[in-house]
């Protein structure tokens, strides 16, 4: 009796688990289908996204004839380096060596200025109590959304007055002074550090400058890296400033050189142009590959554009 009952009880349970198993299988296969659908669609879309960049790189390796014969193909018949060698010659008496040097001078000094000055100012806003701090910080945040393009004419008038036209000064000097974005970024980071650190240093006899240099600076290295990456990357891509202020070819940064090189009237071969374009992106690409995490963090902690 007991035995029979047990069996009877077992049967429906088995059935139920069978159904459950079947529905699990159905769900699993549906999930699998969804996963496949997800990956194929996202993969196709990301190929579409990458196509212009891949096209630029591959076209740089095509001969002039191949470029037109196989315009949209991504894989060149053979790796042709001629575009790089000829394109590097630039024009006039200046090779791309000059232009890259200029770019490194400009971006290097801007980056150095930002890394040194932005955390310094940020410390003032994060840790020192002074009159009018809140208002001034609100102004910093307000200037975050002031677009540089609006200052095109006003700043040009000023630098024209200073007789800074056709020098690096109008690019470097305003670029080195701490930008609102980096002040904000570093202030946010300094605010996360515990105040007890400061107090301990104060008891040991440190003033504000001592606390800043001995306690805060060593603790915000990631913020400094993010500051360096963004300021280098932005100043490297900067086009409008050089366009307005630089006149002599020998002072051209890469961005301006490419734009002048690509003048349709100049009849520059596409292959060379694309080869030099590819080269110009290499520094940014290296930063992207090595330091992607910092880039993403920088954008998300401040919520600002990249």
């Amino acid at each position, binding site marked *: 009796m007991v035995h029979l009952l047990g069996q009877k009880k077992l049967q429906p349970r088995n059935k139920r688990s069978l159904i459950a198993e079947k529905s699990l299988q159905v769900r699993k296969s549906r999930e699998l289908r969804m996963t496949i659908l997800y990956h194929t669609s996202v993969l196709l879309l990301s190929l579409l996204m990458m196509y212009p960049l891949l096209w630029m790189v591959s076209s740089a390796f095509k001969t002039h004839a191949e470029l037109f014969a196989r315009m949209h193909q991504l894989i060149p018949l053979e790796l042709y380096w001629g575009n790089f060698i000829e394109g590097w010659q630039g024009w006039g008496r200046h090779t791309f060596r000059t232009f890259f040097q200029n770019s490194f001078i400009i971006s290097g000094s801007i980056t150095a200025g930002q890394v040194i000055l932005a955390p310094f100012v940020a410390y003032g806003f994060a840790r020192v109590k002074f009159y009018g701090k809140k208002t001034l910080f609100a102004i910093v945040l307000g200037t975050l959304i002031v677009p540089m393009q609006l200052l095109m*004419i006003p700043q040009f008038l000023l630098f024209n007055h200073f007789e800074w036209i056709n020098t690096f000064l109008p690019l470097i000097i305003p670029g080195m002074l701490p930008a609102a974005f980096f002040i904000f970024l570093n202030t946010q980071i300094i605010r996360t550090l515990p105040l007890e650190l400061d107090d301990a240093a104060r008891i040991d006899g440190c003033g504000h400058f001592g606390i800043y240099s001995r306690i805060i600076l060593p603790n915000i290295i990631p913020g400094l890296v993010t500051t360096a990456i963004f300021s280098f990357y932005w100043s490297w891509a900067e086009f*409008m400033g050089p366009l307005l202020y630089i006149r002599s070819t020998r002072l051209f940064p890469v961005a301006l050189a490419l734009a002048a090189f690509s003048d349709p009237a100049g009849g520059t071969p596409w292959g060379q142009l694309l080869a030099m374009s590819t080269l110009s992106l290499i520094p940014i690409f290296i930063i992207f590959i090595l330091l992607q995490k910092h880039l993403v963090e920088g954008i998300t902690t401040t*919520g600002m554009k990249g």
Partner: protein
Amino acid sequence: MDRRSEKWNLKKLSLRDRVFHKNYDNLVGLCFILPWLIGFVLFLIIPLGMSIFYSFTRFNIVSPPVWIGVENFIAISRDARFLNSVIVTMVFAFIAVPARLVFALVLALLFYKPRRGVSWYRAAFYLPSILGGSVAVAITWRQLFGGQGALNSFLNTILGLEITKSWVGSPDTALASLVLLHLWQFGSPMLIFLAGLKQIPRSLYESASIDGATSAQNFFKITLPMLTPIIFFNLILQTISGLMMFTQAFLITDGGPIDRTRVIMLFVYTHAFEFFNMGYASAMTWVVITFVFVITMVIFKTSKYWVFYESKGDL
């Protein structure tokens, strides 16, 4: 008696000490923010002030400015090309900005759940935005959509269409090619959306699933409302950057054909550096500043009708 005076002295000293400290802190604070203050005054306030003066003058850089009162502003109000550039900019911003934001949001939703390969995909979608502002990409765009470009070559091979028209050079498609370039760079709003999505509390979805909510309901009743502050933030930033678009229009179409892509900043540039009307360009700058300010304010003012703030809301 002796003791009391001592106490009094001490009190006075500490008060003086306190005053000294307060002043000292003010001085130190000023010292720390000085680099920013110099930049702010010298490269923002003074240039803006100067441009107000120049906007009332006729000035061609070479000869000294001549005061002409509000003549520049009257001329602007009658300038058909200026009006055209405002319209072009508005059309560009009203199409490109929402499109970019929708794209950014859709992809953020796709990459939100941790899956295999997601970080690679995210990188692939973000890379164009990193490189996108560069001259190199503008040059590439011009070639891709040119008369003998890759797009026409592709259409020819795949669909057998013989198209020789230049997409960047034809009046009816030039602006669209710039919109497409803008759309292509949705990386940074996407990352901001991703960060925002991660901050929505899980518990909301859990209680919704107990109530038997569908995924569509989840999206429209939880995700979207919780994300409105982020959408608002992105909308402000992207609208401003869309209205200020310059480099791409300058490099790819140079405002042409027939001013179809002469966005507002490009028009200001043309007057300043091709016609050398610095006074007129200064006046236009101030009209544009007002224009951008009004649009930003409109977005701010309307935000209270659609942006959901948790602290205010009654869940």
